[in-house]
C-alpha cells in the first residue's frame, strides 16, 4: 500500500523538488544581483555554486526509488530500443516463444484441470471408488470400474463396514419425462442412500433424499440437476414441491443440486432414489458403482481390509434363490481394490495427457534451441561491444545481467503473448479433444496455469540467455577483441555451441517423429481391424425405451418394437431395420452370465460367464454382421418363444471347433432350464472397441422365457437400440421422418442418442486419433524447426567462412568438394543427433506402450524410415547454403580483406 502511494506521489515529489531547486537558484542569483553583480553573471554564478542540478535531482529522486529495480528498468529500456532496431529478430523470437509457451500452457491447463486439481467435492481426498477385483469373473470385471456392486453387496457393506463415514451406490440411466410438452428422454442417476452424504454437496434448493425417499413403499421423489432445473423450470425455486411424470410415475421434486455438481463423472438431469426392496434382494445382479467417504485418517488399504472381510458376510447373508450355491462367487475371487475417486474419474487418460504434455514440451525445447541459436548469433555480432565494455571495467555480472535481462524480457513478452495463444489453444483442445476425456468441462486457464506460464517464460528466458552468457560474459577482452579483428574463420569453440544445439534438435525431432509415426501405424492398424459391422456411415442408430410402467406386457412391448421396425423400414431410402439391446462400442453390456455347453466339462465345475445380447430378426443383416453358419432369427421364432440362440464365431470355435459344427448343438443357462438350440453363428464383433479383443457373445431373441424366474415368465427388451441401413443416415430431414415413424406407433416415445454408427466408431477411436493428431502436429513442427535449425547453422557458418572458401577456391578446390564439405558437416551432426535420438526414443516409447496397438514400440520400419527422412532433410537443408558457398567468387571474397 505504502509502495503504491509512493509510486503515485512520486510525480508530485519530483515536481516539488524542481520548484524548490529552481527557486533556490533564483533567490541566490537575486541576492548576488543585489550585491551589485550583473544579472547574467549572477545567474551563472548561482548555478555554479549550486552544483550539478541534474545529479542532485537524480540523487534526491533516488530516495523515492527502488534502486535495483529502476536500474533494471533502465536496462529494459535499452533492450526495447535494441529490439526495435531488429524487428525481424524480435518477431521471430517472440512468435516462437509465444507459440511454444502457449502450447505448453494450454496442455498444462488440461493436465492441471484433469489430473492435478482435486475433485469439486468438499474434502475430496477422502472419497473412494469402491472397485472390486474379480479375476474369476472374466469379462464381467473387465471394465475400468472392475466388478460392479450388487444391491445386496451395498446393503451388506453399508451396514457392516467400520471404515467409511458413509457409502452409497449409483448407476447412470435414462428416463422418459412425459406430461411436460414433448416427451423427453433425460439422463438420470439412480442413487442409493449415502451417495449425497458421501459427495457432501448441499442442494441449491430444497433438500437431499432422506431415508423415507429410499423406501420402496414410500413416497416417490426426485431431485433435479441444475441444468434441467434451468431448462424446464427457468430456475424457479417453487419447482421444489411440484410433481413430474418420470417413466409414467408421478414423482415429487424435493430438491435441486447446484451448478457444476456432477454425479462422479456424469452429468444428469434427474436424481432418482434406487429405493432397494430388502426382501427381494439376491446376491446378483452386479450393475452399481460404489462410492464412499472414508472416516478421517483411514487409508484405502484399511478400507480394503475392512470390506474384504464383508465379502464372506455377504455370501452368507443372501442367495440367488433355492437350489443355488451362494458360495459360487468364491470362484470369482472377489477382493476390494478401492481407489481414490479421482483416480476412478480420471481413469487411464493420464497416459495420453502426459504424452501430449511431453510432446509439446519437446517441441518447445526444439523451438528454444532455434531461438538460442539466434541469440548466439546476435551476441556474436555484439561481441566487440561487449569486449570493449569488459575492457573498460564492466563486471562480468553486469554484462551477464544485461544479456539475461534481454532474454528474460523476451521470455516474459513471449509469455504474455502465450496467454493469448494458450487461450485459443485451449478452446481448440477442448473442441478436438476426445469427448470421453474426463472433467473436460472443468478445463480452464486458472491461476496455476498462469503461474506455469510465468515460470516457463522466466525459465526459457534464463535458459536462452545463459547460453550467450556462458560464451561471452567471460570477459576475455584481449582475445575476443583480437580475434574479431582477424580475418580468419570462426574459431572451433564458437561453432561448437551451435553444433550441440543442432544435435539436440535432431535428437528431439527424431523422438517426436518416431512417436508420431508409431501412432499413425497404430491408427492404421486399428482402422484395419474388422469391427464386426459394415459401412458405418450408412448405419443410423437410436435408442428407444418403452418403460415397463407404461407397457408392462412383454408381448405388447415386443409387438410395439416390431411395428416400429416396420414403420422405419417403410421410410423411403431405408434398406433394412433391426434392433438389439446394445450395439457395439457404446459401452453398454446388456448382461453377463454363465452358459453351459451340452456335454462339456468345465474346470472348477462352472462354465465361464459370457456376454449376452438380445437381438431382433434382421439386426445382423442391417448392421452388416455376417452370418458364418446357420440362419438368423425370424419373428415367428420370437413370438413362438422358440428356444433358439445365435452365438458368436469365437464361442462356436471354442465350444465345437468350428462355426458350422455349432449348428444344432445345445446350450443352457441353468440345469433346471430347457436346452437352447444354436441356430446360427455370426462373425465376431469388437464390442468394446477395436483395440479390445472380441468377446464370445450369446445372442438371444428379443423376447424369451426368462431364465431367472422359477415360474415361466416372458421377458421383453424395454431399452433397445434401433439400427437402420440407409443412405440417408444422419440427414436432418431423415431424423424427422424417423421421429414421425416412431410416434405413429406411440407418441410418448422419445428418440435418444440418435447418431450414425460412424459417430460411435469414431468416438471409440477418439483417444487414439487425438493423440495421433497432437503427435502428428508436434512431429511436423519438430521436423520443420529442425530443418530451419540446420539450415540456419550451415548458412551462418558459410557466411562466416566466406574468406576461407575464397582462399580454398583460389588454391584450386573443386566446387563440388566445397559443397560436400558443408553437407557432410550437417550430415555428421545429424548422424550424432539420430544416434542419440534413436536411443532416447527406444527408451521413451516404452512409456507409450499402452497407447500403441498392433505394433511394437521398437517397430523396425519406423526406426529406419524416420532417420532416413531426417538425413534427407538435413542434406537438403545444408545443400542450399552450401551451394551459396560454392558460388563464392574468390576475388570478391579476398578483396574484402
Amino acid at each position, binding site marked *: 500500500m505504502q509502495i503504491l502511494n*509512493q509510486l503515485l506521489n512520486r510525480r508530485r*515529489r519530483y515536481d*516539488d*523538488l524542481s*520548484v*524548490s*531547486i529552481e*527557486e*533556490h537558484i*533564483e*533567490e*541566490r542569483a*537575486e541576492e548576488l544581483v543585489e550585491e551589485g553583480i550583473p544579472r547574467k553573471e549572477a545567474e551563472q554564478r548561482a548555478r555554479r*555554486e*549550486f*552544483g*550539478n542540478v541534474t*545529479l*542532485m*535531482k537524480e*540523487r*534526491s*529522486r*533516488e*530516495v*523515492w526509488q527502488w534502486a535495483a529495480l529502476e536500474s533494471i528498468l533502465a536496462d529494459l529500456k535499452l533492450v526495447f530500443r535494441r529490439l526495435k532496431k531488429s524487428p525481424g529478430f524480435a518477431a521471430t523470437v517472440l512468435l516462437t516463444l509465444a507459440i511454444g509457451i502457449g502450447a505448453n500452457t494450454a496442455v498444462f491447463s488440461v493436465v492441471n484441470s484433469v489430473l492435478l486439481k482435486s475433485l469439486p467435492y468438499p474434502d475430496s481426498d477422502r472419497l473412494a471408488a469402491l472397485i472390486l477385483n474379480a479375476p474369476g469373473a472374466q469379462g464381467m470385471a473387465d471394465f475400468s470400474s472392475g466388478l460392479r456392486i450388487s444391491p445386496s453387496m451395498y446393503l451388506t457393506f453399508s451396514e457392516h463396514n467400520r471404515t467409511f463415514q458413509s457409502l452409497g451406490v449409483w448407476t447412470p440411466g435414462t428416463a422418459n419425462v412425459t406430461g411436460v410438452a414433448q416427451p423427453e428422454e433425460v439422463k438420470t442417476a439412480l442413487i442409493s442412500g449415502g451417495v449425497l452424504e458421501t459427495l457432501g454437496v448441499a442442494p441449491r434448493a430444497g433438500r437431499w433424499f432422506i431415508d423415507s425417499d429410499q423406501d420402496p413403499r414410500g413416497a416417490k421423489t426426485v431431485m433435479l440437476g441444475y441444468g434441467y432445473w434451468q431448462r424446464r423450470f427457468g430456475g424457479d425455486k417453487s419447482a421444489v414441491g411440484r410433481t413430474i411424470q418420470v417413466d409414467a410415475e408421478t414423482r415429487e421434486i424435493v430438491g435441486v443440486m447446484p451448478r457444476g455438481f456432477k454425479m462422479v463423472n456424469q452429468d444428469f438431469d434427474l436424481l432418482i432414489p434406487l429405493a432397494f426392496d430388502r426382501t427381494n434382494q439376491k446376491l446378483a445382479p452386479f450393475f452399481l458403482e460404489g462410492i464412499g467417504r472414508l472416516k478421517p485418517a483411514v487409508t484405502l488399504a484399511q478400507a480394503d481390509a475392512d470390506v474384504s472381510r464383508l465379502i464372506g458376510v455377504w455370501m452368507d447373508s443372501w442367495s440367488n434363490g433355492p437350489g443355488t450355491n451362494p458360495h459360487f462367487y468364491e470362484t470369482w475371487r472377489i477382493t476390494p481394490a478401492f481407489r481414490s475417486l479421482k483416480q476412478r474419474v480420471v481413469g487411464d487418460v493420464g497416459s495420453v495427457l502426459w504424452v501430449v504434455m511431453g510432446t509439446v514440451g519437446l517441441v518447445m525445447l526444439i523451438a528454444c534451441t532455434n531461438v538460442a541459436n539466434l541469440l548466439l548469433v546476435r551476441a556474436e555480432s555484439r561481441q566487440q561491444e561487449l569486449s570493449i565494455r569488459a575492457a573498460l571495467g564492466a563486471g562480468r555480472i553486469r554484462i551477464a545481467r544485461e544479456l539475461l535481462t534481454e532474454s528474460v524480457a523476451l521470455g516474459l513478452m513471449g509469455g504474455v503473448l502465450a496467454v493469448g495463444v494458450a487461450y485459443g489453444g485451449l478452446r481448440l483442445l477442448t473442441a478436438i479433444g476426445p469427448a470421453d476425456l474426463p472433467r473436460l468441462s472443468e478445463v480452464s486457464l486458472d491461476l496455476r496455469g498462469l503461474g506455469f506460464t510465468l515460470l516457463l517464460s522466466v525459465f526459457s528466458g534464463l535458459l536462452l540467455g545463459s547460453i550467450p552468457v556462458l560464451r561471452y560474459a567471460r570477459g576475455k577482452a584481449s582475445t575476443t577483441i583480437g580475434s574479431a579483428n582477424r580475418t580468419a574463420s570462426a574459431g572451433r569453440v564458437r561453432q561448437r555451441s551451435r553444433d550441440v544445439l543442432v544435435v539436440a534438435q535432431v535428437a528431439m525431432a527424431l523422438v517426436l517423429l518416431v512417436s508420431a509415426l508409431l501412432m499413425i501405424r497404430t491408427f492404421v492398424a486399428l482402422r484395419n481391424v474388422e469391427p464386426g459391422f459394415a459401412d458405418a456411415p450408412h448405419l443410423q442408430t437410436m435408442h428407444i425405451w418403452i418403460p415397463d410402467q407404461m407397457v408392462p406386457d412383454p408381448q405388447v412391448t415386443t409387438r410395439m418394437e416390431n411395428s416400429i421396425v416396420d414403420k422405419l423400414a417403410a421410410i423411403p431410402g431405408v434398406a433394412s431395420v433391426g434392433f438389439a439391446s446394445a450395439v457395439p462400442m457404446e459401452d453398454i453390456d446388456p448382461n453377463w452370465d454363465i452358459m453351459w455347453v451340452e456335454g462339456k466339462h468345465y474346470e472348477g465345475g462352472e462354465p465361464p460367464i459370457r456376454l449376452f445380447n438380445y437381438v431382433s430378426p434382421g439386426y445382423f443383416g442391417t448392421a452388416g454382421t455376417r452370418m458364418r453358419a446357420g440362419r438368423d432369427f425370424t419373428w415367428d421364432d420370437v413370438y413362438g418363444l422358440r428356444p433358439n440362440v445365435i452365438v458368436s464365431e469365437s464361442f462356436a470355435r471354442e465350444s465345437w471347433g468350428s462355426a458350422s459344427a455349432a449348428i444344432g448343438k445345445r446350450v443352457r443357462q441353468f440345469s433346471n432350464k430347457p436346452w437352447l438350440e444354436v441356430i446360427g453363428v455370426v462373425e465376431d464383433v469388437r464390442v468394446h472397441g477395436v483395440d479390445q479383443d472380441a468377446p464370445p457373445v450369446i445372442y438371444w431373441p428379443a423376447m424369451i422365457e426368462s431364465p431367472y424366474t422359477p415360474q415361466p415368465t416372458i421377458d421383453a427388451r424395454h431399452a433397445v437400440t434401433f439400427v437402420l441401413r440407409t443412405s440417408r443416415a444422419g440427414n436432418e430431414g431423415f431424423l424427422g421422418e424417423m421421429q414421425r415413424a416412431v410416434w405413429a406407433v406411440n407418441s410418448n416415445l422419445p428418440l435418444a442418442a440418435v447418431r450414425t454408427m460412424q459417430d460411435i466408431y469414431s468416438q471409440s477411436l477418439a483417444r487414439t486419433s487425438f493423440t495421433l493428431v497432437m503427435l502428428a502436429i508436434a512431429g511436423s513442427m519438430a521436423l520443420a524447426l529442425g530443418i530451419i535449425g540446420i539450415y540456419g547453422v550451415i548458412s551462418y557458418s558459410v557466411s562466416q567462412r566466406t574468406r576461407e572458401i575464397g582462399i580454398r577456391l583460389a588454391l584450386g578446390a573443386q566446387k563440388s568438394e566445397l559443397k560436400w564439405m558443408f553437407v557432410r558437416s550437417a550430415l555428421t551432426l545429424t548422424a550424432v543427433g539420430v544416434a542419440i535420438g534413436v536411443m532416447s526414443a527406444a527408451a521413451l516409447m516404452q512409456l507409450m506402450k499402452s497407447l500403441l496397438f498392433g505394433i511394437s514400440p521398437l517397430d523396425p520400419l519406423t526406426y529406419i524410415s524416420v532417420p532416413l527422412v531426417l538425413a534427407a532433410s538435413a542434406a537438403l537443408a545444408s545443400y542450399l547454403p552450401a551451394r551459396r558457398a560454392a558460388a563464392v567468387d574468390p576475388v570478391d571474397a579476398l578483396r574484402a580483406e
Partner: protein
Amino acid sequence: MAKNSEHRDLFPGALEIMILKSLRLKPMHGYALVKHIKQVSDNLLQVEEGSLYPALQRMLREGWLESETGVSAKGRPTRIYRVTQAGIQHLEEEVVSFEKMFAGITRVLAVAQA
C-alpha cells in the same frame, strides 16, 4: 561534502538534526534553510545544496517533514518544509544521543591532554 578545506564534513545525522531544529523554529523553504544555518552558526557551518535536497527528500520519506506549496521571501512559488510530530520526536531522541556522544568525545580528549 565541503566545498573547501575550511569546512569539515558533517558526521552522519548532523545535517538532519540541524534541519529539524531549524524548521522547528519556523517552517522554511530550501534557500532560507541554508541561509538560516549559515547565519546561526556564524558562518562556521555551511550546508551543501548537494546534500540538502537529498536529505530533505529522505526526511519527507521518513515522515519527519511535510512540504506544502508556498512563496519565498521574494514572492516566488516554492515549497515550504515543516516538522511533523514524528520529526520532533526524532529530533529529541537524536539530541539526547548527540549530547552523550559529545560528552564522551570531550572526556576522551581531556584524558588525552592530561
